[in-house]
């Protein structure tokens, strides 16, 4: 087996107890919620019949001892049963899966935008360090870093939708337009621009600062000196020699930020009415559908575990020393 594959296998094995731990943790939260666990599972929906409640109690063994209940709960989770949302009249998992693509699209777009923007601005700032350009970029990064994400989303709406009338404010597509194919893709893209920009802004700031610092550090290394001594042009040194190594901390950061970005998408999706997981979380808070909310927490935690795994693998490809050691 190649060392990289063995490394991947080891990482995968390490992820299993974490995911199990998260399920246990979710179970604890379910029981910490005020009131009967059955009523939490029923989403505190008023219309649930007593028969249904007793069926839920039987299903989750709520009349048994706590360790037994935990075991039953874990059984449900392992068989991918996160319960039923009585508000939405579907299973929690299918609800999550229908909302997942919208969130992935939003996060993917924001991720691409932030990495591209952050790397570009960071490289620009590092190549013109301590000039007005560097200062302007630094001020932009500082401001974006301190901006509440939901607020800048609202301000984008005021500017780009209300005043300029360029972009739609709400949803993922024009309601009832019934477009298909390219027309539909274009419609979704138009709806995507503002939410993706909003979600990306904070990370553009983060990656800009990281990239600038990382570039400056790599610039001090000996091999850059030799490249200069060889008489290579500065642009070539920056992009072929320095940039590649300076990217490594950014890759780590991108992986670490997936969970953070999922949180940000709750706010962004709420502002823009984007029909993804974040919006679902917001709706379940309002409907007090705690079981759905807990399902979302578990699901997003697992997403983070997967993202971390992928990051580790990407990193081991970029920097083979990691997998070997």
């Amino acid at each position, binding site marked *: 087996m190649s060392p990289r594959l063995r490394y991947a296998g080891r990482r995968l094995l390490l992820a299993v107890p*974490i995911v199990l*731990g*998260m399920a246990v*943790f979710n179970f604890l*939260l379910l029981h*910490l*919620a*005020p009131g009967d666990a059955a009523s939490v599972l029923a989403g505190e929906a008023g219309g649930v019949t007593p028969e249904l409640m007793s069926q839920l109690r039987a299903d989750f063994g709520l009349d048994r001892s706590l360790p037994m209940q935990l075991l039953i709960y874990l059984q449900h989770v392992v068989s991918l049963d996160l319960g039923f949302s009585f508000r939405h009249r579907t299973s929690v998992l299918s609800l999550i899966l229908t909302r997942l693509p919208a969130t992935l699209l939003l996060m993917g777009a924001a991720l691409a935008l932030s990495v591209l923007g952050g790397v570009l601005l960071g490289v620009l700032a590092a190549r013109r360090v301590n000039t007005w350009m560097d200062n302007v970029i630094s001020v932009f990064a*500082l*401001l974006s*870093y*301190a*901006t*509440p*994400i*939901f*607020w*800048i989303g*609202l*301000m984008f*709406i*005021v500017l780009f939708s*209300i005043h300029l009338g360029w972009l739609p404010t709400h949803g993922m597509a024009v309601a009832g337009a019934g477009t298909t194919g390219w027309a539909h893709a274009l419609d979704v893209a138009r709806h995507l621009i503002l939410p993706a920009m909003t979600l990306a802004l904070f990370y553009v700031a983060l990656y800009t600062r990281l990239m600038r610092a990382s570039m400056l550090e790599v610039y001090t290394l000996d091999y850059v000196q030799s490249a200069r001594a060889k008489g290579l042009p500065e642009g070539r040194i920056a992009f072929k020699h320095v940039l590649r190594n300076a990217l490594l901390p950014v890759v780590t950061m991108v992986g670490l930020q997936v*969970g*953070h970005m*999922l*949180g*940000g998408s*709750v*706010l962004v999706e*709420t*502002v823009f009415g984007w029909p993804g997981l974040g919006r679902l*979380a*917001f709706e379940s*808070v*309002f409907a*007090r559908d*705690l079981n759905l*909310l*807990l399902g*979302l*927490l578990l699901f*997003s*935690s697992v997403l*983070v*575990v997967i993202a*971390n795994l992928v990051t580790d693998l990407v990193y081991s490809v970029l920097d083979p020393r990691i997998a070997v050691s």
Partner: protein
Amino acid sequence: MKGFWARFERNRAAVFGFSVLVIVLAVAAVGPFLYPVDPWELAGRPFSPPFGRFPLGTDTLGRDLAAGLVHGARISLMMGLVATAMAVLIGTVVGAIAGYRGGWVDDALMRCTEFFQTIPSFIFAVVLVAIFQPSIESIVAAIAMVSWPTLARLVRGEFIALRHREFVQACVALGMPERSIIFRQVLPNAAGPVIVTGSLMVATAILLESGLSFLGLGDPNLMSWGFMIGSSRTVLRQAWWMSAIPGVAILLTVLAINLVGEGLNDALNPRLPR
């Protein structure tokens, strides 16, 4: 102390941040006395624009926005500070013990820390507040719960670097109890990074709190900046300033704290390259 100020002063951005922060602190401390208007009172005609009878206008129900801003300053800073203090306490204890003890204790505590770091923090905070009902206590506790792991890892790192130093060995040889060594001898040497990270965490905590109250998960009895934005976002088309003004307050406060934090970093860790 004098050297500290001299180094802090050299960072002009930090001095600017410090001045803004002093103003926000002053507003939080004495604002409600100088501007004694109840932020919940229906003071005048709804939708009054700024710079009229009311300095910043009124909201959708006719509540004075300036009063909300003044009271919100108190809430935001208080929540940010208390939540961070709690997170620093938990993080320091966990990190110190893990770093000092090493071995299986370290392993167990760090697995636990990584576990909490993996859970998406904002969603976790939303779940905690939703489960325990929005109140000051639940919000502060939720923010602390999602913030401590960063600090635990930092403190652990510092302790690992310090624990084999000679002064620690001297303390052990003197028969000093472990608790005193950890908290009286080693911890003060790790204070610089903890103070810097802690100050930056206040900014994150304020952002977290504003996000929660924007979603409607704030304490229903407290006027906060996030709540003001959340409650007026439906009238963005008619009255964009209602959402804009509290947001500027959050932005300035968070920016000021970040700048001060970086200034502290330069001043407390002068040997670090910038």
